[in-house]
């Protein structure tokens, strides 16, 4: 597609006639590109070369092929959030966190999730924390030939990583990184209200429908900012002349709509233990009968918080650094939202270089 000829900054438009001319040109481009938008095929996302090492029900373990001649000693295992697809971290070349890590010399594995099947409705927190993650860690150790493993957890993947770290205090976890990870669930005020124990009958819901459908998860995210979808569509139309904007919109919109269902029992436990009883923050959490107290975690940790995160507000994520037992701990608060912290143009400039700098020092 042609580059937009109208990309000159507003400040350089000196006369009203220039402005009108620009707007007319944009209107024409919008009409042409609007048709292209409807007819265009979806971009290929998550295309960084990889091998599937494990595939077991809802769990998938990928290994991305190294892109440098020399890599850091300790491999990274990324634990994705259970509500969303992992390709948010591997959008397209140049906008892929995975590609960035590979080009900086890291050896990268990802634990990604597919939709749990109806028969997997009985999966519990312990299946994720005491089975799936440990199996992936063992596979990373076997495949890389290295005992130590670094873990990066995104959103609820961060919660699972914290639970794994606190139930596997003897290793092999070497360094832990968490992005937009909630710890004090009182801080997620609207989710608290949606799941108010006086009115929300989680038992009835799970017992009657099994796995929680993706539409319900998606709607609960959308309800946090009900006007934003309509506004984003207006903005899309306005920027239809701008190929880069449209491509980016398509990628993120596709990902946001690609929400995963949640295993019923896992949802029930999350609601009761975390949303209602705030056990992770209160240090009373147990997983499969094992204590999961984050104050016992001592590995180095980097915790990234987004300043304008509407899904996991900073009130929910900030107490992690205070609660965790590690001496080598750092919190970074960056401009951006829940997704723009980890993906997109801002992440390229802000989070990714900070992570590279922190993790490279600790991966040798």
């Amino acid at each position, binding site marked *: 597609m042609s580059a937009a000829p109208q990309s000159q900054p*507003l*400040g350089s438009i000196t006369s009203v006639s220039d*402005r009108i001319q620009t*707007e007319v040109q944009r209107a024409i481009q919008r009409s042409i590109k609007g048709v292209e938008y409807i007819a265009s095929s979806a971009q290929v996302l998550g295309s960084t070369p990889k*091998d*599937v*090492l*494990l*595939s*077991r*029900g809802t769990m998938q373990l990928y290994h991305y092929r*190294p892109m*440098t*001649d*020399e*890599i*850091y*000693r300790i491999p990274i295992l990324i634990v994705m959030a259970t509500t969303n697809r992992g390709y948010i971290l591997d959008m397209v070349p140049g906008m892929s966190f995975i590609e960035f890590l590979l*080009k*900086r*010399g890291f*050896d990268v594995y990802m634990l990604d999730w597919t939709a749990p*099947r*109806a*028969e997997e409705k009985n999966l519990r927190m312990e299946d994720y924390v005491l089975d799936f993650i440990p199996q992936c860690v063992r596979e990373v150790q076997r495949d*890389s030939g*290295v005992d130590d493993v670094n873990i990066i957890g995104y959103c609820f993947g961060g919660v699972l990583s914290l639970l794994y770290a606190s139930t596997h205090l003897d290793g092999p976890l070497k360094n832990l990184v968490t992005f937009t990870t909630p710890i004090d669930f009182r801080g997620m*005020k*609207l989710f608290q*209200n*949606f799941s*108010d124990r*006086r*009115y*929300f*009958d989680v038992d*009835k*819901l799970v017992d*009657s*429908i099994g796995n929680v459908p993706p539409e319900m998860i998606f709607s609960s995210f959308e*309800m*946090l*900012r*009900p*006007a*934003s979808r309509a*506004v984003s569509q*207006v*903005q899309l139309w306005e920027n239809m002349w701008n190929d880069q904007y449209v491509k980016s919109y398509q990628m993120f919109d596709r990902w946001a709509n690609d929400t995963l269902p949640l295993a019923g029992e896992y949802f029930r436990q999350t609601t009761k233990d975390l949303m209602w009883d705030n056990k992770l923050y209160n240090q009373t959490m147990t997983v499969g009968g094992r204590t999961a107290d984050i104050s016992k975690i001592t590995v180095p940790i980097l915790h990234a918080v987004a300043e304008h995160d509407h899904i996991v507000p900073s009130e929910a994520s900030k107490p992690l650094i205070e609660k965790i037992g590690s001496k080598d701990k750092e919190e970074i608060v960056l401009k951006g939202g829940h997704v723009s912290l980890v993906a997109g143009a801002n992440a390229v400039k802000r989070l990714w270089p900070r992570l590279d700098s922190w993790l*490279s*020092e600790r*991966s*040798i």
Partner: protein
Amino acid sequence: MSDKAKDPMEVWHTFLGEMEKGFNSFANQTMGSPEFSRVMGQMTGASAGASKAFGDAMEKYLTGMNLPSRAQMMSMGERLQTIESQLHEIKALLNRVQADVVAEQGGGAPKPPRTRQPPSAAGGGGQT
């Protein structure tokens, strides 16, 4: 007045941004009330109950019509998915065996050495 303030598009963008913020803020206040929780809880419960009741009734109807029900189709889908994931596992195993054989024979692309040093290390590997 600055050019930006005179620019109708800029005024429109500001209005749109403010309207979005205002509406979201108002909706969040409403959704933060106990009344909203109660209504939402009731609706979720009713919707789950209705969905189950409708599903049960539809299943009986389809059985009467000698047609496969949604549950049966889902079960078939699950069996296909199970076969698919077993094929994935076999493929992964074969790839692993093949990689091991190639490695034993000294062929294949060698894995990069794990000797990289961070840029800050004196005389380190730096960027490739």
